[in-house]
């Protein structure tokens, strides 16, 4: 009897969705926690749930929206459970900036700058972090951000401008030079 290799017809679709939306899902989780590793875990969990949902025969009309919603919920749950466990944020959230191959002095300066930036980003409202992550992390334009956040592009410009202003205020209050 001739046997034919079985391929899951949804696997290709899943791969495609992963390629297209994985960074957005990561970005939303990252904006909540400011921790790349946690965001990766949340992103992978969200995609895993999508896969399971499909395997169980669940029909999802808009996988992108579904993933973003699940990622947000997971990020919230993670925040709550982490708070219960530790009572505060883990130290690496505040300090952990992974180094790349740059000169030690530059690296030190960069780490200091990024450490401060991370601290101030962490003090911003989640909505501010979200829009900044989408703009600067994913390099999305106003229309793309508007689509994800389900608001219009004018509101995106306004929110982005305010978020940057608030961040700039905080950075200045904590030592950034106005002439930088």
């Amino acid at each position, binding site marked *: 009897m001739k046997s034919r290799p079985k391929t899951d017809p949804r696997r290709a679709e*899943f791969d495609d969705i992963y*390629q297209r939306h994985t960074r957005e899902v990561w970005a939303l989780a990252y904006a909540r926690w400011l921790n790349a590793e946690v965001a990766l875990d949340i992103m992978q969990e969200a995609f895993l749930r999508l896969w399971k949902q499909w395997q169980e025969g669940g029909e999802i009309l808009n996988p992108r929206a579904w993933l973003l919603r699940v990622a947000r919920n997971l990020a919230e749950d993670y925040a709550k459970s982490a708070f219960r466990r530790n009572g505060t944020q883990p130290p690496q959230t505040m300090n952990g900036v992974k180094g790349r191959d740059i000169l030690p002095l530059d690296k030190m300066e960069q780490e200091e700058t990024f450490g401060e930036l991370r601290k101030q980003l962490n003090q911003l409202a989640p909505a501010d972090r979200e829009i*900044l992550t989408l703009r600067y992390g994913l390099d999305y334009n106003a229309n793309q951000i508007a689509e994800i956040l389900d608001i219009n592009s004018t509101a995106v410009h306004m929110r982005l401008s305010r978020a940057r202003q608030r961040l*700039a205020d905080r950075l200045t209050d904590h030592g950034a030079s106005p002439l*930088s």
Partner: protein
Amino acid sequence: MNNTFSNGLSQDYVDRVLQSFFKKEMPDPWPPVSVPVHKAAGPHSWFQTYGRLALVACVALILISYLSLAAMFPAAPVPGLALDRYRTIGSKLSPKQRVLTPRGAEALVWDETIPGERPTIIIHALEIKGPQKR
């Protein structure tokens, strides 16, 4: 065009710092897609295929057996005069006779013999209640 924030901080600086910060934070290389690997679905065993069918057949068999056994025993007494309700198992009943009591009421009388070394005879008398006459 104003390129500084109200606090005097350069917008370019903020943009630059944010861009490099987020660029650094983004995982590189990006993790490949990973989903749980399922074993290729092999041929189903007999039980997997016919398990439910077998279960239904078993339940049906039990039901049929119960009904068949039940049919071998006398049915419940007919509605109305439940005269044999308290009959002792193994006893013999005489035919019932309709008699008139000294006061003129109708009654059924029969006897029940319980066999044994010393047989016991129980005489039953049951008044037949009709419409009361004044």
